């Protein structure tokens, strides 16, 4: 008894437009989704076999206020409830980022609310906090079309990059191999599905790099897949697509899981979290789950809907910045190569 201190709830409105989804969400106290609207453009980019930046930007400008309105209506909140506006400032496609950043600035100005720029990957990491509270130190494996990174966190809002890809991101390698196998865009889910039906019978390389390195490299693997397909054709043999997919995926997953487990042990982390679009990959989820079951380190994998780009994750990461007093000015800009700090 006797504790009369009232702690007001914090509501952050998040905006994300770094690639091909226009997304707005409202999150309570950094942990609870109040509304989470994502307008995906995937159907529009499919025919091009990838995201076309100019078209992505055109869609964002058309969708922005519609998605804002939906997110607001679904929340049943008033503007006076909103404490701050958080927005992805980078990295991503500059023309796409600009729409979110300028919308966020206009909102912050119109409603006289604090503005907070958020790193996209910090968002992916904080998607997990919408499921379970963090325990530090924690290790985050981020795998997406643009990223393959291992990030160590000793406290909220501080990120230490301990490993990253030296060439292609894992998701990029998936898309390229999918194109070779003539699978529709986006290729990742198709490879994942084919892999589950095939056998990893083809010997493909694993890029371990230096002994003490947590960096990744996938371009050699990609070339090996091209050569394998090419050589088989030359010999008049036909390889099963399922087996190619399974062998490719086995190589990617082997490197990702081995390095993640090693880093987790070396840094004595209390938690490992997986983030980014490729975290939706079933093969990867299963392999990581099995490997970490052999350790006593808990593994957190977000539900599928929080793996892909959304604004709830931006609001969640923005909540921490808000609580730590970090603010952006009206001169906030899109930064396509923003570093995670």
């Amino acid at each position, binding site marked *: 008894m006797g504790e009369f201190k009232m702690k007001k709830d914090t509501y952050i409105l998040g905006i994300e437009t770094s690639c091909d989804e226009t997304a707005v969400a409202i999150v309570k106290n950094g942990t609870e989704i109040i509304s989470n609207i994502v307008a995906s453009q995937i159907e*529009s980019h499919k*025919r*091009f076999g990838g995201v*076309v930046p*100019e*078209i992505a*930007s*055109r869609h*964002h*400008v*058309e969708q*922005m*206020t*519609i998605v*804002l*309105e939906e997110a607001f209506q679904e929340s049943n909140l008033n*503007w006076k409830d909103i404490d701050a506006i958080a927005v992805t400032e980078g990295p991503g496609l500059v*023309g796409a980022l*600009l*729409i979110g*950043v*300028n*919308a966020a*600035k*206009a*909102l912050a*100005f*119109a*409603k*006289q609310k604090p503005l907070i720029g958020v790193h996209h990957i910090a968002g992916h990491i904080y998607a997990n906090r919408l499921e379970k509270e963090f325990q530090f130190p924690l290790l985050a494996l981020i795998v997406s079309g643009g990223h393959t990174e291992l990030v160590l966190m000793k406290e909220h809002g501080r990120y230490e990059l301990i490993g990253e890809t030296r060439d292609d991101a894992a998701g990029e390698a998936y898309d390229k191999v999918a194109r070779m196998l003539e699978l529709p865009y986006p290729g990742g889910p198709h490879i994942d599905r084919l892999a589950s039906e095939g056998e990893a019978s083809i010997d493909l390389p694993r890029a371990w790099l230096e002994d003490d390195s947590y960096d990744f490299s996938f371009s050699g693997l990609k070339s090996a897949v091209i050569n394998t397909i090419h050589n088989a054709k030359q010999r008049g043999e036909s390889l099963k697509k399922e087996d190619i997919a399974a062998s490719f995926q086995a190589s990617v997953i082997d490197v990702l899981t081995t390095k993640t487990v090693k880093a987790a042990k070396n840094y004595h982390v209390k938690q490992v979290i997986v983030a980014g679009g490729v975290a939706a990959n079933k093969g990867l989820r299963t392999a990581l789950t099995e490997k970490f079951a052999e350790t006593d380190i808990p593994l957190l994998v977000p539900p599928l809907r929080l793996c892909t780009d959304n604004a709830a994750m931006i609001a969640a990461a923005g909540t921490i910045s808000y609580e730590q007093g970090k603010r952006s*000015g*009206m*001169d*906030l*800009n*899109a930064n396509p190569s923003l570093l995670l700090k």
Partner: protein
Amino acid sequence: MYILSIDTSNQSLGVAIMKNDIVIGEVITNIAKNHSVRLMPAIDELMKEVNITPEQLEKIVVAKGPGSYTGVRIGLTTAKTLAWALNIPVVGVSSLEALAYQGRFSQALVCPFFDARRGLVFTGVYQWKEGKLSLVREETNMLMEDLLQSFLEQNQEVLFLSPDIDKHAENIKGKLGDLAIIPENTFQIANPSHLALASTNYEADHTHSLTPNYLRLAEAEANWLKSQKETK
């Protein structure tokens, strides 16, 4: 009624605040710098200078292009979001039309244009008659050479207005001679207050569906817009 006008569709950045038809503040810069970084601070500072708060605004007017795709989107996103958040109307005005207001007292045909690279220009033909501006030839994206040829055939005086005039003046004079009227550079960029004036001829746009006046569509974009219209 307080009106905020925004133009970031080309190199110049313009913001104006009007009280009905009176300009109470206007800022124009004409330097090659980032609109995304500078637009909101420019609005913020001008509003403070003239002592107006966001809630006092009753209408937003924006230059919707043609021009730089990115610049147009920065202006439109800002204008649409402000209008939505403040629950006030927004009106998009063609950037060419706003520029044509610099020819208010000319009897000639008015040809505002923006350089669109590779010999192309975004342009339209306007004319002032009895204090009213009318569009006499649709805005389009065309070759400067074809545009000048059409004026030559028409054999009528034409007033040229463009922030890119220096690049084209010699060519225009060479082709059209005395038919071409090219005023001093101070007339060659649009005033954001003219946007507000032009907007009085239009109904408010629907905030969600106000889109840029790109005047140039990639084929894929054209297809996409068509499919959008079909679903509406």
